[in-house]
C-alpha cells in the first residue's frame, strides 16, 4: 500500500497541476438523523486539495468542517457524493484501509502505551520490520523534537508535548494526507503561536498534504496555502489567505475573517475605473464595483486600511466624516470606533508608531478615508 502511494506521488511530481488531486471531494452531502429529523451537516461540497498543500477548512462550530474531514478520514460515510484520494474512489472504505492519518483535537493518545509504542502503532499494524520501526519512530520523534522521551507515558507529558506525540504518531506513517482536527485548540496562546510556525515548518520539511480544520481565522491565515471558508454546510469561499482576507466573497466571510466594516449604499455612476457610491446618510465615496448605476451594494473595508484625520483628506481618497465614539488602546495599535452621520460605526486600526500624529479623542470630529481600491463591493449584493 505504502509503495503504491510512493509511486503515484513520484509519477505526479511535486505540485504537478495536471493529474489527480491528493484529495478530491465531489458533491459531498451528509445528512444525520437526529430526533426524528434530518439534519444536513454538509450540503454539497466540492473541493480539490493538491499534493503538498497546506489546506484549511475554516468556519464556526457546526459549519460542517469537522464532518467533512471525518468523511475524508473514513469515520463517516457521505450520504451522497464521492471522496477520492489520488484519484481513487475511497467512498465507503473504512479508515484503517485509507492512506490518510488524523491528529485529533483531544490528541487521543493511547494512555497505556509509551510514547514509542504510540508512535510505532501504525507501523506495527502495517507489519513493518522491527528495525525499520525503530528507525522511523526515532526520526519522527526527532522531527517533533521529542527525542529521549520514548519510554514516557503520555500522561506524564505536557499538553504541548502530547500534541507533538500525536503529530509524530500520524506523520511516521508518511500518509498521503494528514488531517488535523483543531489540534492546537487545547493549548495556551503562546504555545499555540509557536506550534503554528512549527506545524508549517514540519509540513514544508515532509511535503505531506495537510488538511487543517479550525475555527480560528488567525491560525488559518498564518499557516495555509489555501483556505475553504465554510458556513452552514457549504463552502462560502475558496482561496489563498490574502484573497480571502482582501477580497471576501460574501458578507459571512467578510464578517468571519478578521474585523470588517460593512457599508450599504447605492451606485450613482462610474468614474475612472471606480464606482461612485452614495453611502446612506453619510456621503459619497469611490469604490471598486461593477454593478450598474442604481443597484444596492454592500461595501467592505478592512480597519487597517482606513486613515483617521482631523483635516479633510484629498478628493482622490474615499472619505467620510464622523465622530470618534470609542478609543481602545492595545499597545502596538489603537482601535477607534467612528460613528458616521447615519449611525453606522466604522472601526479603524492605527499603528502607534512614534511619528504618528497625535491621536484623536472620544467626541472629536474626524474624517475616515481610504484608497478607493481598498473598498470592495461584496458580489451578489
Amino acid at each position, binding site marked *: 500500500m505504502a509503495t503504491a502511494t510512493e509511486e503515484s506521488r513520484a509519477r505526479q511530481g511535486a505540485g504537478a497541476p495536471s493529474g489527480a488531486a491528493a484529495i478530491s471531494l465531489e458533491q459531498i452531502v451528509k445528512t444525520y438523523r437526529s430526533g426524528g429529523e434530518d439534519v444536513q451537516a454538509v450540503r454539497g461540497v466540492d473541493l480539490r486539495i493538491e499534493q503538498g498543500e497546506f489546506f484549511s477548512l475554516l468556519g464556526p462550530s457546526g459549519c460542517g468542517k469537522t464532518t467533512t474531514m471525518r468523511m475524508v*478520514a*473514513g*469515520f463517516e460515510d457521505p450520504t451522497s457524493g464521492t471522496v477520492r484520494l489520488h484519484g481513487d474512489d475511497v467512498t465507503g472504505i*473504512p*479508515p*484503517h*484501509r485509507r492512506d490518510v*492519518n*488524523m491528529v*485529533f*483535537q*483531544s490528541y*487521543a*493518545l*493511547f*494512555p*497505556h502505551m509509551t510514547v514509542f509504542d504510540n508512535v510505532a*502503532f*501504525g507501523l506495527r*499494524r*502495517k507489519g513493518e520490520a522491527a528495525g525499520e520501526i525503530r528507525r522511523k519512530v526515532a526520526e519522527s520523534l526527532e522531527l517533533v523534537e521529542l527525542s529521549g522521551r520514548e519510554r514516557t*507515558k503520555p*500522561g506524564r507529558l505536557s499538553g504541548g508535548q502530547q500534541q507533538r506525540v500525536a503529530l509524530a*504518531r*500520524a506523520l511516521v*506513517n508518511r500518509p498521503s494526507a494528514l488531517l488535523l482536527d483543531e489540534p492546537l485548540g487545547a493549548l495556551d496562546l503562546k504555545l499555540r503561536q509557536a506550534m503554528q510556525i512549527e506545524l508549517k515548518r514540519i509540513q514544508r520539511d515532509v511535503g505531506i498534504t495537510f488538511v487543517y480544520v479550525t475555527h480560528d481565522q488567525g491560525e488559518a491565515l498564518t499557516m495555509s496555502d489555501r483556505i475553504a471558508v465554510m458556513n452552514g454546510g457549504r463552502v462560502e469561499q475558496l482561496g489563498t489567505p490574502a484573497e480571502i482576507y482582501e477580497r471576501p466573497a460574501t458578507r459571512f466571510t467578510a464578517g468571519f475573517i478578521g474585523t470588517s466594516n460593512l457599508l450599504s449604499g447605492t451606485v450613482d455612476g462610474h468614474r475612472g475605473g471606480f464606482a461612485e457610491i452614495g453611502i446612506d446618510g453619510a456621503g459619497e465615496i469611490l469604490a471598486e464595483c461593477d454593478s450598474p448605476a442604481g443597484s444596492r451594494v454592500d461595501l467592505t473595508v478592512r480597519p487597517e486600511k482606513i486613515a483617521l484625520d482631523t483635516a479633510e483628506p484629498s478628493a482622490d481618497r474615499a472619505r467620510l466624516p464622523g465622530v470618534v465614539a470609542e478609543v481602545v488602546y492595545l499597545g502596538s495599535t489603537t482601535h477607534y470606533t467612528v460613528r458616521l452621520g447615519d449611525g453606522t460605526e466604522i472601526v479603524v486600526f492605527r499603528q502607534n508608531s512614534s511619528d504618528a500624529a497625535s491621536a484623536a479623542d472620544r467626541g472629536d470630529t474626524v474624517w475616515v478615508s481610504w484608497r478607493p481600491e481598498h473598498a470592495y463591493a461584496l458580489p451578489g449584493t
Partner: protein
Amino acid sequence: MAATQAGKRGRTGRFAPYALVLPGWVWLALFFVAPIASVVSMSLMTGSLGAGYSFTFEVGNYTRALGLYWEQILRSLLYGGLATLLCIAIGYPVAYWIAFKGGAYKTTYLLLVLLPFFVSFVLRTISWGFILSDNGVILGALKGLGVLPADFGVLNSATAVVFGLAYNFLPFMVLPIYAVLERMDHRVVEAAHDLYAGRVQAFVRVVLPMSLPGVFAGVIMVFIPTSADYVTATVLGGTGNTMIGKVIQTQYLVNNAYPLAAAITFVLMAVLLIGIFSYAKALGTEQVMEVQAR
C-alpha cells in the same frame, strides 16, 4: 490576646481533619479490627462450647484446618476462579455492548443487569434448583422430547455450582467493566482505526488494555465472595462439591468447634489475600492504577 486566639484557632485547625475521620476509624475498629482480632485469638484457643474456651496458643487448629480441609479450600478457589472466568466471558461482552451500543437506553440495560438483585440471593439460588432439577422445567421438557437421556442431570454437580456462582455475581463483573468502558474516550478507538487497526486489532491493542482496571476490579469483587460462598454450593451442589464456606458454617453453627472454624476462616482469608496481591503484582498495579487515574 489576638495572637493567642489565632494560635488556638490554628491548633483546632490542625486537629480538625483527624476529628473528621474519627467516625470512620471507630467504625473500622468496631466492625473490622475487633472481629478480626477475635477470630485470630479464637483460632488459637482450645475448649468446647459447654466448658468454655481458653487461650492456649493452640497452633494445632491451623494444622488441623489445613490437614482436614485442604481439599475444600482448593475446590473453593477452583470454583471461585472458574466462576470468575465465566463472569468475565459473559460480563465483558454485556458491559461492552451496553457502553458502546446502548445509546439512550444505557441506564435501562444496566437496571436489567441489576434486576435480579431485587430478589433475595438465597431465593434466586433455590429457584435455580427448581429450574435445573432432573425433571424440572428445562430438563423435564427436553427428556420428554427425547433430546436428553432419562438419567441426565445438572444439579448436584460442579457445573451447577460454578454456573450458579457466576449467575449470582455477574453484575459485580459487569458494573466495573462498564464504568471503565463508558468513560473511555471514543476518539482513542478511532485513532486506532485511523492507524490501520481493524476491529479486532483495535479491541485487542487499545480497548481491552484500557479496560483492564475494570476487569481487575471485577475479578476482585467476584473472586473473593464466590470463593467464600456457601449458599450456592449447598443448594446446587451435591456432597462431592462442598466448598470451604459450607465447612466453616458447619464447624461454627453445627459442631460449635469455634477455634477450628476460626482457624479455617483465617486460612481462607490469608489464601485470598495472597492470591489477590500476587494477581495485582502480576498485572502491574502501577499501570492499572495509572490508567484508572485518568
